[in-house]
């Protein structure tokens, strides 16, 4: 039981400690963990559906060209965004904003190129052709949806006001948005590996 209740207001001293700025980062790590589990579920479904099937992707794997160009776009966008994060740390806010805008343009380029890939791929495979088409388009569309969410977050950070305010460090929002964007890029690495490269290797091996 406390014996020191009711101290007068003006006698309280301040605890000297910094403000906790990393709760948002912690939450983003957990969002990434659960989103990663979602993609693991999707990849497991891909393998489960492909198990013991007569017709499967290895007969006619999707083209590599588009996927690899898309991969290059996303990886370079991650590097660019990382460079932008360094600019915020050095308080070069205008440069950071320009770099962020470049990242968003690269993300839009990714989406545009992926729609071309869909138009091309649709001629031989549609989501309603068979279970392979269903899971192929579901995984890639889920990833595209995450790219769109990532772009919306980056766009929000781009227009975030008061970069110079002391209380609302711009670094926090920038950093958290960048974490999500890097995650989306890493997912695409696995999509390329599992949906595109491995079927080609299997065909090559045969």
């Amino acid at each position, binding site marked *: *039981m*406390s*014996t*020191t*209740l*009711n*101290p*007068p*207001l*003006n*006698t*309280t*001293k*301040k*605890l000297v*400690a*910094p*403000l*906790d*700025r990393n*709760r948002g980062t*912690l*939450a983003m790590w*957990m*969002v990434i*963990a*659960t*989103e990663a*589990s*979602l993609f*693991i*579920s*999707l990849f*497991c*479904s891909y393998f*489960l*559906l492909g*198990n013991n*099937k007569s*017709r499967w992707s290895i007969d006619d794997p999707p083209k590599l060209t588009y996927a690899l160009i898309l991969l290059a776009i996303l990886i370079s966008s991650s590097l660019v965004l990382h460079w932008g994060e360094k600019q915020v740390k050095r308080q070069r806010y205008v440069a950071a904003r320009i770099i962020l805008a470049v990242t968003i343009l690269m993300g839009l380029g990714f989406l545009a190129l992926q729609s071309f890939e869909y138009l091309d791929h649709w001629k031989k495979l549609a*989501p*309603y*052709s*068979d*279970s*392979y*088409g*269903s*899971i192929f388009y*579901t995984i890639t569309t889920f990833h595209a949806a995450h790219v769109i969410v990532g772009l*919306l977050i980056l766009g*929000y950070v781009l227009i*975030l*006001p*008061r970069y110079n*305010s002391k*209380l*609302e460090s711009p670094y926090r929002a920038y950093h958290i948005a960048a974490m999500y964007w890097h995650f989306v890029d890493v997912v695409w690495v696995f999509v390329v590996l599992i949906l595109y490269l491995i079927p080609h290797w299997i065909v090559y091996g045969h």
Partner: protein
Amino acid sequence: MSTTTVEQHLTEIWETPKGIWGKLSSVDHKELGKRYLVTAFILLIIGGVEALIMRIQLAGPDKSILTPEMYNQLFSMHGITMIFWYASPILSGFSIYLIPLMIGARDMAYPRLNAFTYWTFLLSAILLYISPFLGQAPHAGWFSYVPYTNIQYSPGHGLDFYALSLLLLAISTTGGAINFIATILRMRAPGMSLSKMPLLCYSTGTISFAILFALPALSANCVFLELDRHWGTHFFHVSGGGSVLMWQQLFWFFGHPWVYVIFIPAMGMLSMIIPVFSRRPIVGYPYVAISTVLTGLVGFGVWLHHMFSVGMSDMAMSFFSAGSMLISIFTVVQVFAWVATIWKGRLVMTTAMYYALASIACLVIGGLSGVYTGIIPVDWQVHNTYFIPAHIHYVLIGANVFPVFAGLYYWMPKMTGRMMGETAGKWSFWVMFIGFNVGFFPMHILGLNGMPRRIYTYPAGLGFGPVNMLVTCGAFVFGIGILISIVNFLTSMRSGRIAGRNPWNADTLEWDTDSPPPPYATVHIPTVVSRNPLWDDYDEEYDPDDTRILDEGRQTLSTTWLDAEPFAISQMPAESIAPLLAAIALFVFFCAMVFELLWIALAGLIATFASCCFWLWPRPSPEERSA
């Protein structure tokens, strides 16, 4: 200002504004925890009434009170409501209310996320319960196996309501899990290292991690189902190369961890209540804590035991059978710890303790029938008979409903400030306990005699009639027992004895606040040196320099996750209407998806994004506004 005490100042900072606006924008964990409890309890009553209607239909052979379709909708809604919308949210309600108080924090780590998860939980329940009013409730059980749930066998919107309201609930549950993990790992009072943390924090933390990793499998499954039903894909159509078993694999990969989600926190509550009424610390604290975490971990490796009768390779079945045996050891460790605590202690037989003891008994019976069904040949024999409902109800009523009632009787004085009536409580207990055993024990016998589950009636010649009548009577007696507790609660809330700070002479920090606690909880953020803070001689609020008052705005301490060393001050957000707006926008999206109104769905998504921007948009601080 010189007359303002620190209490008044802190109240000014932390108090939720009065009136309807305050209600809609509140982010106070105490307010939200109570709402969770009330909403989930109402859903328990709805699910219970559904069960009673089913029991009337099954009371005798060849009854025709319900049509087969109505029966199917009722048993599905009963299961869905109880497992998804009652069992987990009511435990979240306890944890949201209690954990910040128990660990000496002034709120959850993300107060606005907390409000958002409550609103999405409420709106997902509303979305689910639109369906019976359209006469199109889901009718394929809480597990909704394909191919029965494909569009050609289940036309109408029933399964769409199921899949989409579950997706909305998944968002709510995931948000809640993130909030619990951050609160437990980051907000504990200085000195409350992991080895001194109350056991409820261990259980809630464990299931929060389980939710993060298991729930996406259900979400993926629900998306596949919707795509199959309305967009022509072939995930579950064998003719299109799909796999019917994939639904079951994904569903149970989520489903078995979920079983632990709905009972591990309840076991954590028992681990808090039993030591208090045995008047001694729990026996084997580290073993209970470790086995809680291991249950959550090994819970990911047993899901195939729900599918033994499907037919799989012997290797896989043996592995999962062994896993199912292994996991019972961790539960047994906790049960033995409770029994040893009771054995070594001096019992105080309050109503809460009655419920706790009943819970151990029922959990052991349900656990043993679980060990039977983990043995593959026995499982093949009893699968799809009433043995399985008997098992699941012994586990879930034993390890969820009874602990919840123990928790209500134990913590209600803290929440309302008044004691619950003990005499009425004990009446309620005995009526519930007898009704439960009369209602559910004969189901084992029915199952062994071969009565299949999920049937709407049975012919007279099979001789199931008398036992079924007994089961129905037991179910009604059980319902009356719950009703007595509700009446008891409503009367004691107005006219019960004043509880005071610590009516049970309990050991944990939530009892160091007034009942009901003020909005700021304690004037000084407490410090902790032992596992039973209020039983040792140390003064938790000893703070000669008043450095831990933190009255410069909504502030609480951040501490390191392992040793709970303070390293920073957390600035907490104030009330906001944004979480409610975001939840409503998401609700519009999911509603529109049920009826495939794509433009409205798109508008819902845009509104969700807009309200999230409004939620997070930085506002100038008072100093900056004046500058």
